[in-house]
């Protein structure tokens, strides 16, 4: 194997040499304080309050009723469908996106940065427009229909493909981020020693990628397991996931007892997945030789690599670009022929009455404001958590790691309704405050920050930190001089995700009452909620702007690259 040093087993790490222990532990606990407090206040407390209200409904606590609800045949059916579609979606996403991760990490070709930004755009699209966009791909008169007469719009395939559409970027960015920094010379060395191309990849690169692969698979699984909009719109009324059912029971029927049981079921499932993930990953993370990504990419060589590049290009074009392209086309398609009429209308106050008191374009400013705030919170809290988790130790820390992932597995409506009944009194009277929006969005952004940064942070060679300490650097200084330069890139990727998550309005924000300053997705939904050509056209134009804003922000992040020398040591 090509590890830089022998793996030290966990027990040795949990008990560092006497003398350094108290200080290291104190630092770790200090780092953990903020994330722990954040999750306690804005996640654990609201969620447990709403679940316990459901479980105590009617005064009593009745375990029998919980079991009876959890084993109802219709609910078991929902659980089964939720699980298998999530597994299938995850497998399909990995299958289709891994070549993309390789191409974007290792091949150097014109338009690479643009492509990297473009694949992330689907991630931010609000489901109200993705429904329209995706039906254009798999529905009547869609691309597949035109080519082969295949219509998938009421089948489970539509759901699976839409999940790939949304999560492609998760795999490309999470896996690709590490892949780009792996030293290609190791794989080359294996090939020199006689290994075939695939064998070299399997025995050298794959094990090194394993942690980020597992992280990506975990994220995709959690996202698809808790899929809401996609299932609702593309699945029609026949397919339903736990998440959709929890939403129905809570928001439509206010049947909190049933919703609480469903939430516990989802919790149990997600907890199991997190535990399995933790077991798989625990012994796989090792110090790797990380290098500057600028040096790992090369021009495509040979027919196979060109073919791969072409294949990835075709997949991205058909699956990721075609649906949004439909929105762009419709935003330009006015009754008078193609033109910018709908875009111009976005800058005007609606004189007819109605949807907006301000020009819809102001939604762009609102969205950016919320997204910046959410990104700041995500990066601060997530970054501190990742730093605290870098040195693996003890059950407590591992439990904390899993805790940080839980918001991805809990229904947004549960969190949103939990906020309502908990954050209503001083000193935390935040229910009607704008700040709740970025805080709720950060709950989804933080897991991304942690998952993206952790594999990279853990791959930093411990000896570098030790060397810094020996030379007299304080832990903070050591972190700044050793860790930060290496993880800056991962930090930017993570910030990009947190930003995108906020722009796309994932999570509990939909369920938070808010003053009338709509964000982009809210404005799109509002325009789509009324009849009339102009409303529809403006909705398409605004959705196009949303994609453009996202792509521009991600491209901008790509520009902040680490200095040329920082990766070399």
């Amino acid at each position, binding site marked *: 194997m090509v590890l830089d040093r022998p793996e030290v087993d966990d027990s040795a790490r949990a008990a560092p040499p006497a003398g350094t222990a108290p200080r290291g532990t104190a630092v770790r606990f200090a780092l953990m304080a*903020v994330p722990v407090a954040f999750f306690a206040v804005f996640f654990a407390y609201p969620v447990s309050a709403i679940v316990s209200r459901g479980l105590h409904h009617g005064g009593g606590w009745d375990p029998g009723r919980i079991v009876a609800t959890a084993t109802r045949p219709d609910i078991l059916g929902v659980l089964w469908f939720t699980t298998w579609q999530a597994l299938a979606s995850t497998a399909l996403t990995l299958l289709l996106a891994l070549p993309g991760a390789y191409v974007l990490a290792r091949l150097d070709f014109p338009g690479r940065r643009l492509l990297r930004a473009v694949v992330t755009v689907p991630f931010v699209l609000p489901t109200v427009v993705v429904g329209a966009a995706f039906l*254009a791909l798999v529905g009547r008169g869609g691309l597949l229909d035109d080519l082969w007469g295949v219509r998938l719009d009421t089948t489970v395939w539509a759901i699976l493909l839409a999940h790939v559409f949304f999560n492609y970027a998760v795999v490309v960015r999470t896996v690709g981020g590490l892949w780009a920094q792996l030293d290609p010379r190791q794989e080359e060395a294996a090939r020199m020693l006689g290994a075939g191309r695939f064998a070299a990849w399997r025995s050298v690169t794959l094990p090194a990628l394993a942690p980020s692969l597992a992280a990506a698979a975990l994220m995709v699984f959690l996202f698809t397991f808790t899929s809401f909009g996609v299932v609702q719109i593309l699945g029609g009324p026949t397919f339903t996931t736990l998440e959709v059912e929890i939403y129905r029971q809570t928001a439509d029927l206010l049947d909190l007892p049933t919703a609480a049981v469903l939430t516990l079921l989802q919790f149990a499932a997600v907890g199991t997945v997190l535990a399995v993930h933790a077991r798989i990953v625990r012994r796989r993370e090792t110090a790797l030789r990380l290098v500057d990504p600028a040096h790992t990419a090369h021009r495509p060589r040979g027919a196979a690599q060109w073919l791969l590049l072409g294949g990835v290009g075709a997949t991205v074009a058909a699956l990721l670009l075609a649906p949004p392209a439909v929105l762009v086309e419709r935003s330009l398609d006015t009754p008078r022929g193609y033109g910018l009429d709908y875009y111009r209308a976005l800058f005007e106050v609606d004189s007819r009455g109605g949807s907006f008191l301000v020009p819809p374009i102001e939604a762009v400013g609102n969205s950016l404001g919320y997204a910046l705030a959410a990104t700041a919170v995500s990066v601060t809290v997530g970054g501190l958590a990742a730093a605290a988790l870098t040195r693996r130790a003890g059950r407590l820390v591992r439990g904390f790691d899993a805790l940080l992932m839980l918001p991805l597995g809990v229904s947004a409506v549960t969190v949103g309704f939990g906020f309502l009944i908990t954050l209503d009194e001083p000193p935390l009277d935040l229910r*009607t405050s704008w*700040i709740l929006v970025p805080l709720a969005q950060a709950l989804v952004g933080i897991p991304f920050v942690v998952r993206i940064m952790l594999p990279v942070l853990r791959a930093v060679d411990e000896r570098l930190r030790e060397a810094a300490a020996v030379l007299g650097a304080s832990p903070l200084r050591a972190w700044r001089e050793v860790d930060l330069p290496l993880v800056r890139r991962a930090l930017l990727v993570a910030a990009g995700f947190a930003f995108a998550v906020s722009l796309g309005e994932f999570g509990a924000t939909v369920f938070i009452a808010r*003053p009338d300053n709509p964000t982009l997705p809210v404005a799109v939904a509002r325009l789509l909620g009324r009849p009339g050509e102009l409303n529809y056209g403006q909705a398409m134009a605004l959705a196009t702007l949303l994609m453009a804003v996202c792509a521009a922000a991600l491209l901008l992040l790509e520009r902040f690259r680490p200095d040329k020398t920082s990766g070399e040591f």
Partner: protein
Amino acid sequence: MNSQLRRAVGTALATALGATALAACGGESGGTGGQDGGGSTVTLVTHDSFAASEEVLKEFTEQTGYTVKVLKSGDAGTALNKEILTKGSPQGDVFFGVDNTLLSRALDNDLFTPYEAKGLDRVAAEFQLDGEKKRVTPVDTGDICVNYDREFFAERKLEPPRTFADLAEPAYKDMLVVENAATSSPGLGFLLGTVGAFGEDGWQDYWTKLRANGVKVVDGWEQAYNEEFSGSAGGRQSGAERPLVVSYASSPPVEVLYAEPQPEEAPTGVATGTCFRQIEFAGLLDGAKNEKGGKALIDFLVSTAFQEDMPLNMFVHPVVADAKLPELFTEHGVVVEEPATVAPATIADKREQWVRSWSSIVLK
């Protein structure tokens, strides 16, 4: 959790949290933190479809000295459920947007403080569903009806349907798209309309026939109207195939309003024999911090100024007799003579059961 414990937990957690997390976004400005207790602000909690012109809200401020803070709280059902959940510690002073399909749920939960709005005598008795106790005040009405694509029927020289019964005729096979009654408010309204028309024991047979006639069910209005209905802008662009959709009686005038240039005739029409009447109410929330301001706001909601402002903002009809309809509505709107109705108490009793059997008839 009891309130003291909650406060203690809240305080402890907030202290533990310190300023760090909040400081991260403290630099962002433009929001108001926390509740505005009493004073010059009155908070209106409502659903996402609420809209009022700036002028009319200014007029309220000039008349009363109160500024209205609007909190949008999700769709109609979600917004109401949130208020039920936070009963006694409401997010605002007045709630607007509970309709006759959900009214009993609000009243059974004692959400509102009785208040008789000034000028209530101008509101027809048929709209005052809580006329005795006056816990809620009617504000607007609207009809949920099947809309049709004029061009489609003109091209085929086919008479558009007029009644519920027509929709089950073979001539209209595979033409109708409806919303899921379990998840959509027009979907539920249309189901209730069929209950009103065919009776509590007759509507199931009717839906069996509709299903045999190829009715398509989608999750929400946006999808039904923008993607499946051939008469909408979205439908035209995507080549939608269904010329009949469950929407509102006011949809055709809105189609005219939001077209450029405005056409002589709306591209869509209304099947006036397929309508269910929705009445929307407002109420003073129990535990309101600014009760006086709340009362003034409810008075204002039934004032002529607000009532005449509503139609072009929310596309609904006024409930007071003296409010004039805008020209757009008189020209392109329809008069629905006898909409189907079901008593709110019956709806409250049977709604879930009806939706369940509807699902098993239409979706399984």
